[in-house]
């Protein structure tokens, strides 16, 4: 019994040690952001002098070439429609998938996994040329459309799995009462699917917000750059202003972090469900 108790203490100690190791870089970035430059130059872990300052944050928000106030606004302008549009479209497709039996179901299923594997680099150049042909280069609409298309396969996949858990006899009852498929979908299925939609929305929103590559290839005017695109610009070439960069990193991190904290259960469920069928 004694041995068991000791083992348990070791386990608890290991757990908190791991937690400490994992959180230290975050603590470091946070300390660097809220303290003046000269205090952190010998390491943010020195607390002999400690002065709180928000100067780094205000500098990041109003940065002359990479203002994050503007960047945050731009990112929201892209991320909100790029979440709503694919969710609507893919929820419909996922429903079609789960309810209608058609011969090539397995093949379509494989195609969805393949699109999950597809790197964004594979579409980059032609998509750029396509946007150019449509006059959509350097415009948010183009980026929103790419994000929507890119999100559709996994959301379809995710919603299809969700719909498979809703028993079909609920709809059959409504159909017997003469409701059309269209009506059944929007009146019965859609509300039932809201928890699934919330999970998918949380993930899609944070992914669009966090995206860097698609933004990099489709938006380039300095005033139009999204939040993630502004972070590399804050890094000087020869000299790194760590206070500024840390504050910028935190500002970009805050949005997905908030989504995660509010929707933690759905977020993890979404991620697990999306990967585990």
């Amino acid at each position, binding site marked *: 019994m004694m041995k068991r108790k000791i083992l348990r203490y070791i386990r608890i100690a290991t*757990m908190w040690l791991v937690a400490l190791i994992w959180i230290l870089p975050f603590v470091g970035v946070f300390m660097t952001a809220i303290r003046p430059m000269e205090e952190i130059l010998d390491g943010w872990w020195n607390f002999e002098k400690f002065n709180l300052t928000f100067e780094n944050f205000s500098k990041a928000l109003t940065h002359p070439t990479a203002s994050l106030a503007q960047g945050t606004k731009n990112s929201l302008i892209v991320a909100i429609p790029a979440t709503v549009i694919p969710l609507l*479209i893919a929820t419909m497709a996922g429903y079609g998938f789960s309810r209608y039996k058609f011969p090539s179901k397995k093949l379509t299923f494989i195609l969805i996994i393949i699109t999950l*594997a597809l790197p964004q680099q594979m579409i980059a150049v032609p998509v750029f040329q396509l946007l150019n042909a449509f006059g959509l280069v350097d415009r948010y609409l183009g980026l929103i459309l790419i994000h929507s298309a890119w999100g559709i396969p996994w959301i379809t996949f995710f919603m299809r799995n969700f719909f498979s858990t809703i028993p079909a006899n609920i709809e059959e009852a409504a159909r017997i009462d003469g409701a059309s498929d269209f009506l059944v979908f929007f009146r019965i299925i859609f509300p039932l699917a809201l928890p699934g939609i919330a999970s998918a929305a949380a993930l899609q929103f944070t992914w669009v917000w*966090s995206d*860097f590559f698609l933004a990099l290839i489709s938006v380039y005017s300095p005033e139009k750059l999204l939040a993630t695109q502004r972070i590399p610009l804050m890094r000087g070439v020869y000299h790194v202003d760590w206070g500024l960069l840390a504050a910028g990193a935190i500002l*970009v991190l805050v949005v997905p972090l908030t989504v*995660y904290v509010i929707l933690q259960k759905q977020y993890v469920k979404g991620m697990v469900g999306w990967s585990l069928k």
Partner: protein
Amino acid sequence: MNRRARFSHYAFFMLPAVILLALFVVYPSLRTIYLSFFNDEGKLTLESYREVLGSRDTFNPTGFKKGFPLGTILHNLIWIGIHLPLSVMLGLLLATLLRNMPGSSFVKSIIFLGMVMPMIVGGVMIRFMFDKNVGIVNLFLSIFGAEPKTWTAYPESALFSLIFGSIWLWTGFSMVLYSAGLETIPKEYYEAAQIDGAGKIKQFLTITIPLLKPITTVVVTMTLLWELKIFDIVYVATMGGPGGASNVLALQMYSYAFREFDFNKSAVVAVIITLSTLIASVPMIKSSLTQE
């Protein structure tokens, strides 16, 4: 309802998705394949492949004698060789360690933070950890008497810094999936094994690991895809430098396409990445088909 009506409804639900996918995913992918095989005059040629595969950017044999860069293909392979086993095993170990522990959901949230943050922020964090003045890694190493330096700025250590930093970012993923998987294993299995006199380690090897196999398939596949597509972290932390010492395939594609405007060479790199991600996802396709 007759078959025709069924089909029209099916089309109604699927059509918007199909159009967007055709326009922004299917067509561009086919076009990239075309660009990789045809030159600007529209002639079928393997010239671009020869150029890319023969280039020192991709594979640099002199690197074995002189040190980094070794070329993007080898850099990605090294990334996989270190990151895949460590992050998968660490995730499983942590999931097991944290199971049913008081305060474990808090600790899990901390570890999962790496997955929540934009990878561009992840790259900044890695750069920060390994910095000469502000980096925690140097504080730790100074205990052993190591001279502080900015690890991401030297050819021999840049790639390894990024790889170890990316383990810190990604372990949350495998941990969360394994944690969910552990909950699905019935307690009776362990109780029965205990009655048979099997110790904890034996239980772990004979019950936990085999029953988690479907999850391992998903974790390994997703981790491989992530490693093969890695871009943001490298872009912001080192830009593939110094001197290409931490360059990776995805960044090489970007430089060819949007710095040199050589769309044929960039298409070749894109095709290489896609081929490797497709091969990596074969086990997952297989396992999902048998489960169907």
